[in-house]
């Protein structure tokens, strides 16, 4: 972990950025679906605004510049001056994507992404040159930041020979409330050129009437130097909605009847900063020290006593306070504002009670508060591993206790049982920590759809379902690439062009549905498009052309569909920028299998294609049935077992010369001999009296696996087999049993799809 506090604050800013981007996407999706209410638009606006605010605090200029322009446009929308058209929505989404790129670039210290400019220009074109009206009433929603009080290099007074700008800057209360600091702005101005700053205090009421959180002073700054209007506006970029700003070129404004402030560096210490009602918060830097030679002020006094001590302040210094409102001291205004600040400030939301070191991070006020802790993933993984070891250890202990031959009702056995329950609970809880909703993943896919559809000129809408479905974090991470690929495929190959769709009697806009749900102990993610479906004759022709199948091969529809998964297969006539490079679905399938998942295609011509990905919930543990086959111990996932049965001769029917089916509850189920399929032994003469596990797959196919005996049912920790063996058909992973031996974990669906189905011994000799 970084020890630099700034680095930590920065990191938390970026984490919050991600959350803001997520809520931005959500709100945009809502808008896209037609909810144009103020709240939704406000969420968009706030998200962009908060990112901008935070970024400004870190000096991430590219991000700020982008967010600002985006925000300006959103502001137009918010004020109802801009219509929300589908084109506008597209641009909003695009801009949100770019905003994300900017955030990432800023986080990684990479150069800002290219190509955001056209998007902004297009966005701004939408505004149609509508005048940007400053929102005086706006309350920004980030917390005050701690400020260091060092002075920037201030310039000396010079005679105004160069162009002179007069900046009239009147902060509103909102400016202070949002933690902005006039001093910084003035200082920034001072960097532009030579400044002469005056403070207007005409509006300042007497102390009794003074609202401690009000804003009463106005600064008039004359800047001499090579400065443009834009430079000056840039300084006030963040506060222009919360202040009154007039920028005029020319000499001093005669109408201004203020007092001449000494140049900034003469102010040393007595800075206008304290005009911020919260600046005197304990823990901040050295308080205001008034130069003793200021007119109208008594000797240096603890004016900036901690706000929590108003009484002390008054006791020490009542006359000065009273005098203040009338005293023509340069520091008058700041003090007037600072002194009465304490008590009321503490009662109002942001700031008063916040220590100065608080992150200047943007807080989303509207997001519902839920207490969360951010934990390093490594720590969780270590915990997961430890719990895995604990489970193995507990199993070993249970085994040795059982071997010791203790009576079942002994204290040790009871204790062990409680221990087992606890272990299980711990394990479940640990796994829950790793589980995350698929929502961020799906949101990424929204972006892929937008990019892909604009690249191929199709109108595509992405619908998502079951976003809250929780899946292991690793699964989510490793799913991103295959899913991206499949979404691109759906856009590029699955959906037709708008014209073709219209001709087929469909809406011009294609729909891709991305859904996630829990089904029988696994997570099923489906990508459905309403496109043309798989063109089977074309796929077949392509496969023959590429030599992947024999020209006279008889293939069922689903077999043809599955050809898509063969390496080097691509049906697109033209290799587009998106897909069609030949690294296609085979890579997707490999990635899914690497996660212990399966992928299936279901396609109907003219109606669309559905890809189903079925994944294990977690990569770490599973409930399994431990069985014995040819003296090998195997684990079959419990989730796939429907029932177990003992075979009789009557159950078994011969299907072909090599294969058997069994008759179970009115249905015929293919019989597979595990021992033979895994190469442990030859198929047996007779399976009568054998034990079968009846398994079911996601698609409802059932199969019966013959085992020698069932040992027990227990939870096992999944250990990956090293990649060096590639994919072993029928084997998902391995586990370590209580005796320290390794047992293989079967994947029944994969086993069956690769199985020979040979359960009759007479053919064994032929097969060699």
């Amino acid at each position, binding site marked *: 972990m970084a020890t630099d506090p700034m680095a930590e604050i920065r990191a938390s800013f970026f984490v919050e950025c991600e959350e803001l981007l997520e809520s931005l996407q959500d709100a945009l999706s809502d808008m896209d679906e037609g909810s144009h209410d103020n709240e939704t638009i406000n969420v968009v606006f706030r998200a962009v605004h908060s990112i901008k605010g935070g970024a400004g605090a870190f000096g991430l200029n590219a991000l700020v510049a982008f967010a600002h322009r985006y925000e300006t446009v959103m502001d137009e929308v918010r004020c109802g001056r801009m219509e929300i058209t589908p084109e506008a929505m597209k641009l909003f989404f695009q801009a949100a994507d770019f905003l994300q790129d900017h955030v990432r670039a800023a986080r990684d210290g990479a150069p800002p992404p290219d190509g955001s400019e056209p998007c902004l220009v297009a966005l701004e074109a939408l505004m149609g040159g509508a005048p940007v009206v400053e929102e005086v009433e706006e309350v920004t929603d980030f917390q005050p930041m701690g400020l260091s009080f060092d002075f920037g290099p201030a310039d000396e007074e010079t005679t105004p020979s160069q162009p002179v700008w007069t900046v009239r800057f009147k902060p509103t209360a909102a400016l202070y409330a949002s933690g902005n600091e006039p001093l910084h702005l003035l200082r920034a101005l001072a960097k532009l050129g030579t400044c002469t700053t005056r403070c207007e205090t005409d509006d300042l009421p007497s102390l009794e009437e003074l609202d401690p959180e009000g804003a009463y002073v106005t600064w008039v700054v004359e800047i001499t130097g090579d400065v443009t209007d834009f430079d000056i506006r840039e300084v006030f970029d963040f506060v222009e909605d919360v202040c009154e700003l007039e920028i005029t070129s020319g000499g001093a404004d005669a109408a201004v009847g203020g007092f001449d402030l000494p140049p900034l560096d003469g102010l040393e210490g007595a800075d206008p900063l304290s005009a911020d009602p919260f600046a005197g918060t304990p823990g901040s830097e050295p308080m205001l020290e008034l130069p003793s030679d200021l007119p109208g002020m008594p000797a240096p006094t603890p004016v900036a006593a901690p706000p929590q001590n108003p009484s002390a302040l008054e006791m020490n210094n009542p006359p000065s306070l009273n005098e203040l409102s009338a005293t023509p001291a340069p520091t008058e205004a700041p003090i007037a504002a600072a002194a009465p600040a304490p008590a009321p400030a503490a009662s109002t939301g942001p700031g008063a009670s916040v220590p100065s070191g608080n992150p200047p991070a943007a807080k989303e006020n509207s997001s519902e508060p839920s207490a969360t802790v951010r934990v390093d993933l490594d720590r969780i993984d270590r915990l997961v591993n430890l719990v895995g070891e604990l489970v193995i250890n507990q199993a070993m202990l249970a085994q040795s206790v059982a071997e010791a031959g203790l009576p079942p009702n002994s204290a040790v056995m009871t204790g062990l049982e409680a221990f087992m329950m606890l272990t299980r609970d711990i394990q479940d809880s640990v796994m829950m920590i790793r589980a995350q909703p698929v929502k961020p993943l799906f949101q990424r896919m929204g972006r892929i759809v937008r990019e892909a559809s604009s690249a191929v000129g199709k109108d595509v809408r992405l619908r998502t379902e079951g976003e809250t479905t929780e899946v292991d974090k690793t699964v989510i991470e490793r799913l991103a690439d295959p899913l991206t690929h499949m979404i691109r495929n759906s856009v590029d190959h699955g959906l037709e062009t708008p014209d073709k769709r219209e001709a087929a009697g469909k809406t011009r806009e294609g729909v891709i549905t991305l859904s996630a749900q829990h089904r029988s102990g696994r997570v099923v993610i489906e990508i459905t498009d309403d496109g043309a479906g798989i063109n089977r004759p074309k796929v077949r022709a392509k496969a023959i052309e590429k030599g992947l199948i024999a020209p006279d091969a008889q293939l069922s529809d689903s077999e043809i569909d599955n050809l898509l998964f063969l390496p080097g297969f691509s049906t697109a006539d033209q290799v587009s920028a998106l897909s069609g490079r030949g690294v296609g679905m085979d890579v997707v399938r490999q990635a899914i299998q690497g996660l212990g998942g399966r992928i299936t295609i279901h396609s109907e011509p003219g109606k669309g294609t559905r890809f189903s990905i079925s994944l294990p919930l977690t990569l770490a543990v599973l409930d399994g049935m431990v069985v014995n086959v040819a003296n090998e111990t195997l684990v079959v996932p419990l989730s796939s077992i429907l029932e177990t049965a003992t075979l009789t001769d009557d159950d078994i029917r011969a299907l072909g010369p090599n294969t058997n089916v069994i008759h179970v509850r009115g249905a015929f189920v293919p019989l597979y001999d595990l021992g033979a399929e895994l190469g442990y032994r030859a198929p047996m003469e007779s399976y009568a009296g054998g034990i079968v596990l009846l398994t079911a797959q996601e698609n409802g196919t059932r199969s019966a696996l013959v085992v020698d005996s069932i040992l027990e049912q227990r939870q096992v920790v999944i250990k990956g087999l*090293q990649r*060096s*063996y*590639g994919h*072993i058909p029928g*084997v998902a992973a*391995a586990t370590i049993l209580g005796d320290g031996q390794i047992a293989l974990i079967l994947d029944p669906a994969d086993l069956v799809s690769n199985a020979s189905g040979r359960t009759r011994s007479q053919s064994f000799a032929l097969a060699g």
Partner: protein
Amino acid sequence: MELEKSSQNSSELELLSFRLADEEYSVDIMSVREIRGWTRATPLPHAPYHVRGVINLRGTVLPVVDLSVRLGMEPVEGDARNVIIVVQVGSQTAGLLVNAVSDILALPRTELQPPPELAADAAHSFIEALTIVDGRMIRVLDLSAVLPDDNVEAA
């Protein structure tokens, strides 16, 4: 037992020599992580013949290669006298089942000679170098050739 990885200068090479059938082979000791007694390996279905199976190495699944079969000889029988040498090549860890470990040899690199080209022997491609120690010929194995190949078998 865990072998200590001693630092060595580059001109010297330390080899762990072991017996396979009646012949003597060796591997660079720097790639040896530990030596374990024989444990029964869980066979992997559809695995290459020389892959004996997997064993539990303190909680991780370790593939075991029957080196004898890998080099085209009869399988090692697998009893208490046999040992598994755990080696690491790159990121890959595997166990090599051999008949017995015999010695640790330190010799200058200059004494190694490349094996002569003999096409008829499968074992030849696994041998990196040959050397003579006390009148015995010692073969230095090329471990990356012996271990299962990620790319070929994963495809």
